[in-house]
C-alpha cells in the first residue's frame, strides 16, 4: 500500500477521534459546569423542596421550581401532540404521493422557516395565535382565556419545530431503498400499506429520533414561547391557562442574576433542571430506539 494513503488514513482517523472526543466532552463539561454553578443553592435548600415546591419568591430566598417544570412539560407535550401527526403525515405525502415539483418547492420553504429567528415566530404568535386561542378555540371549549396560554405556546412551538422534524423525516423517507418499495408493492400492497408496514418500520429509528429531537427543541425553545405563554408563576390547570417555562425563566432573569443573592445559582439550577429533563427524555427515546432496532 502506498505510504501516503496509509498516512492519510492515520491522520484522518486521529482527527476523527479528536473531534468525537470533543463532542463527547462538551455535554459533560456543560453538565458539570451547571452542577458546579448550582451548588450554592443546593447547599442551602433541600433538593426535593427546590423541585416540588411552587413558592417562587427569590428576594425571600424561596425558590420552588415546580410550576416552571409543570408548564414546560405541558407546553412541550402539547406541541408534540400537534406536530407529530402533522409532520409524519405530511412527510409521507410529500415523498410518496405529491408530485415532484411540490417537494422541490417545499424544501426551500422549509429551509427559510428553519432560518427565521424565533423573535419573528413570537411576533406571529402574538398577532395570530394568541387572539385565535382567546377568541375562537377557548370559547369553543367553553373556557375563558386571554389567549396568553400554554396552548398558544404549544402552537407556536409546534410550528417552529416543523422545519426540523419535517426535514429529518423527509431525509428518512428519501433514503428508503427503491427495492423496498418494489418488494412490497409487487406483493399487491397498497401504497399506504407499503408505507405503514415497510417504510415506517425501516425508518422507525430515524422517525423516533426525529421526534426525540423535536421534543428537545421544543423544551429548550425560549424567546418565542415566552412571548405568548403568559409567564405567570402558577400550576396551570388547563391548556388555556398561562404558564411560565424554564427557558423563559432563564432568559427573562438572566440579566438580574447579580442582584439577588443565590439568584444566579438558582437560574443555573433551572438550566440544570432543563438539562436533566433532556437527559431523561433522551434515555427514554434511546431505549425505544434500541428496542425497535433489536428486532
Amino acid at each position: 500500500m502506498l505510504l501516503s494513503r496509509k498516512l492519510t488514513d492515520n491522520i484522518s482517523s486521529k482527527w476523527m477521534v479528536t473531534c468525537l472526543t470533543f463532542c463527547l466532552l462538551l455535554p459533560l463539561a456543560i453538565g458539570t459546569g451547571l452542577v458546579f454553578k448550582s451548588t450554592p443553592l443546593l447547599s442551602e435548600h433541600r433538593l426535593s423542596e427546590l423541585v416540588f415546591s411552587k413558592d417562587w419568591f427569590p428576594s425571600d430566598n424561596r425558590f420552588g421550581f415546580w410550576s416552571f417544570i409543570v408548564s414546560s412539560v405541558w407546553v412541550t407535550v402539547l406541541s408534540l401532540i400537534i406536530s407529530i401527526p402533522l409532520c409524519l403525515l405530511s412527510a409521507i405525502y410529500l415523498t410518496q404521493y405529491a408530485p415532484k415539483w411540490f417537494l422541490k418547492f417545499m424544501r426551500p420553504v422549509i429551509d427559510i422557516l428553519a432560518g427565521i429567528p424565533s423573535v419573528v415566530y413570537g411576533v406571529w404568535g402574538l398577532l395570530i395565535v394568541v387572539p385565535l386561542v382567546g377568541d375562537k378555540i377557548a370559547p369553543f371549549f367553553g373556557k375563558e382565556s386571554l389567549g396568553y396560554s400554554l396552548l398558544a405556546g404549544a402552537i407556536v412551538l409546534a410550528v417552529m419545530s416543523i422545519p426540523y422534524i419535517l426535514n429529518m423525516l423527509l431525509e428518512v423517507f428519501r433514503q428508503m431503498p427503491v427495492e423496498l418499495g418494489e418488494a412490497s408493492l409487487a406483493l399487491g400492497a397498497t401504497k399506504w400499506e407499503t408505507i405503514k408496514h415497510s417504510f415506517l418500520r425501516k425508518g422507525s429509528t430515524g422517525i423516533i429520533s426525529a421526534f426525540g429531537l423535536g421534543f428537545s427543541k421544543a423544551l429548550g425553545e425560549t424567546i418565542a414561547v415566552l412571548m405568548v405563554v403568559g409567564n405567570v408563576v402558577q400550576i396551570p390547570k388547563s391548556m388555556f391557562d398561562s404558564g411560565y417555562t424554564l427557558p423563559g425563566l432563564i432568559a427573562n432573569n438572566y440579566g438580574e442574576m447579580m442582584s439577588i443573592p443565590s439568584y444566579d445559582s438558582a437560574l443555573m439550577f433551572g438550566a440544570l433542571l432543563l438539562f436533566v429533563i433532556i437527559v431523561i427524555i433522551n434515555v427514554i427515546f434511546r431505549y425505544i430506539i434500541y428496542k425497535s432496532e433489536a428486532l
Partner: protein
Amino acid sequence: GCTGGSKEEKNTSGSGNTVSISFSGAFALYPLVQTWVTEYNKIHPEIRFDVQAGGAGKGLTDCLAGAVDVGMFSRELTDAENEKGVWSLSVCKDAVLPTMNVKNPLYNEVQARGVKKEEFKAIFVDNSIKTWQQLLGKGAGADNINVYTRADAAGAADSWAAFFGKKQENLKGIGVNADPGVADAVRKDLKGIGYNNTLFVFDQKTGNKLPGIDVVPIDVNGNGKIDADENFYGNLSTFLQAVNDGKFPSPPARNLYFLTKGKTQKKELLDFFKWVLTDGQKFVHVAGYVPLSETTLTEQVQKL
C-alpha cells in the same frame, strides 16, 4: 481624576487608532444613548461606540463581567448590587406610567376618578381587587381587570413595583415580553391594565399620546378624584414637567444610570460622561426624557 489615562491616550492618539467604548443594558436608555453617541461622534469621530440593549439586568451583568465598558441601568441599585463594586452615574430621569385601553367602557369614570396608590397595589400586588366593579363601585360591570406585567426582568417593572415598596416578582398578571408587548396587549384588551415606560405612552415626535392606550391617572392626594394639579398627562412636555417638579411620584419616576465596574480609568470614557452631564443634557428633553436638576448635575459631575 484622570490618572493613568494619559498612557492610554498616548497609545491611541500616537498610532491614530480609534478607541472603542461598548454599552449594554436597559431598553429604556437605549434610544437616548444612541442619540448621545451620534452627537458625540460628530465632535469626537475617533471614538467607536457599540451599543446593545437587553434590559437593565443584562447591563449590570455584562458590565460586572467585563464584557462591556458601560452598563445602562434603569432602576435603583440594590444593596447586594452595590456590594459587588459597581460605580454608578445618574444621567437623566424618566417615569413608568400605568396604562389602560381608550375604548374601555369605563374610560371616562376612570379618568375622572383616578386610582389611588393602595388600589393599584390591590390590583397589581395583592390581587384583592379583581373586577372593575370592585374598583369603581356598583355601576361598573363585573368584568375582570386583566393585568399585564413585564415578563423580562426590567427596570420599568421594578420601578413600578417600587411604588408599593415591592419587587418585580411580586407583580401579578400576564407576563409579556418587553415594553411594546405590554403596550400592545393593553391596546388589544378592552379590560386590560398595565404599565409602560414614558416613550411607549407618548409619541416622542408629536408629544401626543400613542393611539389605543391612555394613562390611568394616579390619585396622588387620595381624595377620590383627579384634581387639576393631578392632571398633567395631556402631552409629553406637561408630563415631563410634572416629573421634573416632583408632582408625579417617584418611584415610579426614576433615575437612569450609567454603570461601570469600579470607577473607570479610561480617559475617553470620563470625557464622554462629562459631556453627557453638560452639553449632552440638551438632547435629553428632545429624546423624551427628563433632564436632571442643576443640583444633581453638579453632584454627578463632581463624582467624575
